[in-house]
């Protein structure tokens, strides 16, 4: 038995993102300037999201073992224990389990009050909602709320994506600018109504300082040339150093961003209830130069790659070994519902005769 991989270029005529990026590479990446201490400060209020509707670029659930530890974030160590199939949680950090969670998913709220004396010494109450899931392999958690405020009239939403209880993880935590539900990574610079603002988030997420971004900027456009029959719901890019991140899905004429080298991270296409996600795959970096305009053509037509195995007179195709790539090299994953099966045709080239056809069943 042997395994071979066959790569097919199915009428792919794509703009080479590599060439495009190369042409602009002289601009070079810049170091992210920190937001200036001056500027305005806005308060961010905590809001639990019982009905979770945010779409995060890197959603992760952390396995719960003995405690949920938020000490470093100003909270406590919240004990957990299994009681039968239920998970008992100490939600106020007083050492006793006060909430019992059953089923496959749940939503709980951790809260720690502080005494007047502690408050006088700068201690702050801690509030943190958790989404809990038990997919059958034990309980896991992820943030179940967000810190929300406004720069002008534009809503800013911060989400503790990495689950450490803090909100200042640039390039790790998540944020939304505006009323969209699709989040990008927490960025040191945000685009509010077309203008760039440098931001600095308090680690507990209670406030955010912002000031006009004075650094060089250009325009990055991934939406206008995206060829798809579905709605582009999110296109998340992140600078190579993790300092900047933006959702470009609604920027049909491009979005003003700080000069940097950007990598496509992930995104989502939707059509009614159908959804497909994409990730960087083989997409090359896009460099945005000062006052420059970088346009990336992505989407269809797609290239499919698949592997097969020979076993005697049989040829085996594995759905797990089938991959789809877009024009820019982005890879399409997590088709929902699972897409129509491709049809495999086995041909004897000597006599130009079709020997067999096959599809994946269950599609």
């Amino acid at each position, binding site marked *: 038995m042997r395994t071979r991989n066959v790569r097919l270029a199915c009428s792919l005529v794509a703009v080479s993102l590599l060439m495009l990026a190369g042409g602009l590479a002289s601009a070079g990446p810049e170091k992210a300037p920190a937001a200036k201490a001056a500027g305005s400060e806005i308060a961010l209020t905590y809001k639990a999201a019982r009905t979770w509707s945010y779409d995060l670029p890197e959603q992760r659930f952390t396995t719960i073992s003995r405690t949920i530890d938020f000490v470093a974030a100003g909270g406590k160590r919240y004990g957990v*224990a299994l009681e039968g199939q239920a998970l008992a949680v100490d939600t106020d950090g007083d050492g006793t389990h006060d909430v019992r969670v059953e089923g496959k998913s749940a939503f709980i709220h951790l809260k720690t009050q502080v005494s007047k004396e502690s408050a006088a010494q700068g201690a702050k109450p801690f509030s943190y909602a958790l989404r809990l899931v038990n997919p059958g392999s034990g309980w896991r958690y992820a943030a179940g709320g967000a810190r929300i405020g406004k720069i002008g009239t534009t809503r800013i939403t911060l989400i503790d994506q990495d689950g450490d209880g803090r909100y200042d993880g640039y390039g790790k935590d998540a944020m939304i600018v505006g009323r969209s539900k699709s989040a990008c990574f927490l960025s040191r610079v945000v685009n509010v109504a077309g203008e760039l603002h440098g931001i600095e988030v308090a680690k507990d997420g209670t406030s955010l300082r912002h000031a006009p971004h004075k650094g060089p900027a250009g325009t990055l456009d991934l939406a206008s040339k995206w060829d798809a029959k579905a709605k582009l719901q999110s296109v998340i890019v992140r600078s190579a150093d993790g300092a900047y991140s933006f959702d470009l899905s609604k920027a049909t004429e491009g979005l003003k961003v700080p000069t940097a080298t950007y990598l496509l991270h992930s995104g989502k296409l939707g*059509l009614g209830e159908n959804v*497909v996600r994409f990730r960087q795959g083989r997409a090359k970096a896009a460099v945005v130069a000062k006052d420059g305009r970088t346009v990336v053509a992505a989407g269809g*037509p797609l290239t499919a790659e698949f592997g097969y195995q020979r076993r005697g007179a049989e040829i085996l195709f594995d759905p797990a070994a089938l991959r789809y790539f877009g024009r820019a090299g982005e890879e399409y994953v997590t088709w929902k519902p699972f*897409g129509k099966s491709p049809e495999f045709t086995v041909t004897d080239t000597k006599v130009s005769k079709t020997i067999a056809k096959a599809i994946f069943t269950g599609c």
Partner: protein
Amino acid sequence: MTTRLALALPLLLALCWAGAAPRSAGADEPTEAIVPVKVVAGKLVVSCDISTRFRRVPATLFVEFESACGLRLHNRAASGIRAENRDGTPNPITIHLPDRRITVAKREHGTEEVYESFTKFHAPDLGEVALVGTIGAEILKPFHVTFDLHGGVMRLAPAKERSEDAAQEVEGSVTAPITLTNDLAWFTVNFADGKPGAMAVGTAHYDTVLDTDVCERRGRPAGDVAALTVGDIDLAKYVAFRPEEVVQVHKDGVAGVLGLNVLEHFRVEIDRVNRFVRFTQTKDADFPKADLAYFRARAEDDGDAMEAFLKAHPKARLARDGSRHLVNLRLSEGASTEVMGRAMTWVNDAEKEDLRATTMLELMKALAEAGHTKHVVTAGKIGVESGRKDRYPDAVHKIHGKIGQVLLDVGENREAWRHLLSASFGLPEDGMINLNLARFYEKTGKLRRAYSRYVQAVIKPESGPQAMQGLERLQAKLPGGERYSVDLVERLIGGKVLNFGTATKFKPTEKNSSNRVVLAEFFTNAHLEAAIGGALGNEGMLSHFPRAHVAALSYHLPAPEPDPLVNELAVHTAQRRLVDRPTVHVFNGLTKGPGAARSDQKEAVYNRLRGTILQELTNASRWTLELDAKVEGDIVRGTLRVKGPASKGLKLHIVLAERGVLFPGKSKVVIHRMVARGVLTATLDGIAYEPKDGVMEIPFERSLREITKANVTYLGDLEARGGGTVPKIAVQIDPEQVSIVAYARGAAGGVAQAVQLDPKVTE
């Protein structure tokens, strides 16, 4: 021969897949089918039958003109008509509508929770015929469809011929051209400023939706645009638009999707061939001010605004949505008990009278999970008031049970007891109610009553582990009581749990047996639901074959989630036997048999295990194994004596097991048999067989506490590696339950011979 592979790519970004196109059948069917439909709780539904060549059943289906699907079906409904064969190949399904039969090649999976919840809450409106699926665009698009909801019908006619005149204006109607994009029929609407947008014809939702981006751009987050016209019809005079994200694309820009509320005012005819939609008014405009008030309150995202809406429109269609939204807003605001109580009363009052207790029970569960303990009791007390009238009689008992649990936790014992007792009258076998009653009796010193309740709770996975601890505590306190043991619990729960014993016992003869003792190893997990069938089959096997012929062991693996009986030995042995799932039996190290099945398949599992053992029993072994062992206090010691020829690679294994371990997991197996706990040799890989004069003796000695400690450490390491949380119960080894299994295993993995002994126990 050279082969070349070519790949016919699907339309990759047009994601829908609905199998082969539907066929409409029947020469006896009229040209136009008039199908009665109705709107139930904001969804368009049709009553029909569905069938395959095997069976025909009545069904209720959603009608979703814009959904990218053919026929979606709930798994239970699909199973009922045998929509798929055992190998997964589909059977054609026929939808029997009045005057029309439509056959599809295969079904698609439906959103089961949505269907079940809809049936639960609206069964009387559905004529008590369960909602089990959806008819979507793939079914409807071959037809010339007319929705006349005012008349209560949907008309399905064959697609029209292409005609120049078809799309002409008809007096009293508005005819608009349509475009077909992604299978949706789109017509142009114009906003008050004259700007156009595309609106899709839809029936999946009651409200006509305006895309949130459109609403935001127009500064109308509540969707209250001044006008939205098609021809001379201003839709904004008929309905309030619901702002929602519309996940669709159209070259003219997506405005929204038509809802049933527009279709209730107009007969809407869609001709996909001649590309037009025709609106004919059937009902006068009566603008729903309450709907608009709700969308405005929702856009404000503020509890006071939502409460003001409910006060102004307490009987409104959207009061139910509004009351639920209000609770979420108030919880986010950290509202006081009084304010939360008011919000929850709105939830109760906005619900149908016979579903109020059910609704409040669901709210209680959500509140309890979120840690809002004091609100749980308030919600429960509101729900109890409607308990007697509720459609689901268990709801009120479950509410009492939840209230009792919360009150017991906060020390209001007497009040808790009142609620728990009330709950137990209705649900006498509920694990948590019995457990909480046991806790109450234990707290108040009524130990015998507590003991009785713990016994009833111990067999349920949700309450079993805590009940085990309770029983152990009480056994020590009860005067003259028998020592707490698995055997005692097994007698107490007799008849309450699933078990399986065979009517016959194995009778060895010269033909059906030899000196061979078969080693039967069962790989399982206490939380694997399908483990029950394997465990019952195993139980049957143990009851049929005496230990002189079959030595048994079970190993618990950490998938799908770890249980306390998992240990290093189990995982190591699984690797050696090439077992990757806790779903198999392995005989004599090589031959595999089933280890997972439904409980009603236990006999089939047992028969297969028995058949395999009978085959293995006739293979005489060249070796004999003799065990001599005893348990003294915490120490198990003894000797394994092996006779037989030297054989390269043959290794001897001595395993300590427990005959019965009490641990109720999700599998519903309460007592686990012959659980391998650890080895009595220096390593997991056994000892090389090196006989002198054809004999080898291996003495062994080990502390039970030491084995337990090693297993607990292993579970801790498993947790630390992110394996999840494992309760440390059922980890202690009961000396009375100790059994020892020894076996000789060859280099190729086969087991040459085995032996089992239940050692004597001395103090």
